[in-house]
């Protein structure tokens, strides 16, 4: 398996004819963890949704390749099969389908017909990963996200990531709504995945998750584009001083794009 590569060039994304992402460039390679930080309404979640192919977001121009292939040409499920994963900020609830059945369908979707994962192996893997995330085994038999608390949904997103073993994962505000214990558990899950064949993009408001997952690169997003990049120290400075110094440095008055989806 080769190390993944996600390359975004001059990406522009609109929602209902309003441009949210206004020319964004970013490259993520295997083994790297990137963090995109920024205040509310600067287009962070739009970026993650557009990369996964959310039906409401329209890519108006630019280029995104994933391992050399045109990501934007792919259907949502093809993107996932190619190895892209999005841990969503607000995962859907699906009644009548158990977590376990859903996960097995997802795993088998990536495998050839006739090469489906055996039930025993699946259960073994699931138990192991759930233990790792300190999740009660009962979650496997509950309907997908139905009645889950915010924190339970986030853990469930990480569980799916660990079970599906993507090449590149985007974590969209995975830390929002988590207490410190849950945050550590989620970080443990991500760190467990860390290896040269895995890349990760963490989208967050706060630095606190980055105390537990050290990023290789930190980017600041404002007005629908990346305005500043640096190492982990950039995140620390943002935590200490806020975003105003960047706005001042770049002469930005209103950092938002007017609408955060």
């Amino acid at each position: 398996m080769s190390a993944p590569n996600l390359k975004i060039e001059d990406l522009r994304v609109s929602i209902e004819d309003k441009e949210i992402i206004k020319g964004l460039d970013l490259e993520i390679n295997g083994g790297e963890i990137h963090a995109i930080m920024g205040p509310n309404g600067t287009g962070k979640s739009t970026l993650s949704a557009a990369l996964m192919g959310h039906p409401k977001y329209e890519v108006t121009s630019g280029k995104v390749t994933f391992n050399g292939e045109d990501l934007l040409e792919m259907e949502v499920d093809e993107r996932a099969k190619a190895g892209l994963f999005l841990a969503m900020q607000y995962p859907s609830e699906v009644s009548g389908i158990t977590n376990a059945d859903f996960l097995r369908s997802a795993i088998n979707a990536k495998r050839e017909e006739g090469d489906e994962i055996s039930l025993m192996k699946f259960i073994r893997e699931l138990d192991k990963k759930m233990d790792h995330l300190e999740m009660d085994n009962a979650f496997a038999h509950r309907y997908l996200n139905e009645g889950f608390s915010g924190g339970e949904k986030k853990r469930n997103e990480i569980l799916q990531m660990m079970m599906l073993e993507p090449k590149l994962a985007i974590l969209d505000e995975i830390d929002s709504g988590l207490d410190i214990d849950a945050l550590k558990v989620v970080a443990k899950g991500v760190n467990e995945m860390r290896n040269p064949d895995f890349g990760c993009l963490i989208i967050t408001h706060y630095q606190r998750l980055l105390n537990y997952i050290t990023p290789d690169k930190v980017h600041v997003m404002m007005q629908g584009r990346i305005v500043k990049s640096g190492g982990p120290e950039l995140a620390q400075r943002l935590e200490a001083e806020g975003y105003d110094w960047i706005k001042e440095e770049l002469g930005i008055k209103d950092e938002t794009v007017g609408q955060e989806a």
Partner: protein
Amino acid sequence: MSVDTSLRFDKDYVNGFTSSRQEPAWLQELRLQALELAQNLPMPKPDKTKIDNWNFTDFKHEATGNAVAFNELPEDVKALIGSEEDAKNVLVIHNGTPVFFALEQEVRDQGVIYTDLLTAAKEHEDLVKKYIMKAVAVDENRLTALHASLFLNGAFLYVPKNVEVSAPIQAIYYQDDEAALLNHVIVAAEDNSSVNYVENYLSTNENTESVANIVSEVYAGAGAKVVFGAVDNLAKGMTTYVNRRGRAERDGRIEWALGQFNDGNTVSDNTTHLIGDGSFIDTKTVTIGRGDQKQNFVAQIFNHGKHSEGYILTHGVMKDSASSIFNGITKIEHGATKSHGEQTERVLMLSEKARGDANPILLIDEDDVTAGHAASVGRIDPLQMFYLMSRGISKTEAERLIIHGFLAPVVSQMPLESVKNRLVEVIERKVR
């Protein structure tokens, strides 16, 4: 244009038919009275569905089936039972004739009566008379009267006082003759007894027009519990009128799990009366409409007893240019204090041309009660689709998962694994 609903069956016909079957005099009497009523009563008027040009009254009446060994049963019927070893407590009625029957000695020893209705009418006259056409009245309309005068056979399941039947009791009604399917089922559970009954309706008249007129009557005595599962899977040519009616006495309990998957036009009425104090009804029903079929479903609960509770859950999937009306009715009668009624109707639309109306109706004549309802008609949530697909699941598979999930409340409720599996297959075939 409306069809001619005058009857082609007269007194002589009914006399001849009932004599040739050596029916007891009381039944002959019932049939003749019913026939007279059928000639004069109006047709039923399902709310919001026009049935003027549906044919319910012109049909070939008598059909025949022959008793067979398990292995000679049609594959579709065998699939519902499982293997021969699984055929423990099952009655198969083919074209109105009982063709296969099994009942465990253990169940017989408990005093349980399970047999085809005609045999019961001869051998257990008093019991059958006590229950037949009591929950559904002969004179409700032309079709209930017609049913009483012409029903061919059915099942009679009687559970004595304090008897708990652990194994599910199964019935399969299978029609491959062009004749009408006129079936009558009675499930009577005496005080403090408990039983699970599950029935399947099958027919092969894809291209032949025929009529089904079905009545099921369920009686739960004081403290008794009846679980009633049904999977209807009648073919496109069948125009169906089905009444499933229940009565629960004090602390009695009836749980309906109805998979209504007919392919032809259907009027279905499921009404339960909470007669006794503390009685409880749970009605779960799911359906899939496809092609250009028209259906009308009523799920209705009357709270008469104090502290009685009634729950209705209806989920329908509509595709192609199918159209369905879903009427949920909770009626809390005066004096039914501290009772509770709740209902949910949800309709999932899979195509632009399909139509589904969900009408939750609460009628409350008592102040000291609680009640609630919810209804929705909508398409598959694009965000759910996005979520499932973002895990690598294809569009078709994601839709399939969502639909199965939507129909799960009834599937998971089926008391027999073989029926459950079959139900999943039926859903699979219908949504494809």
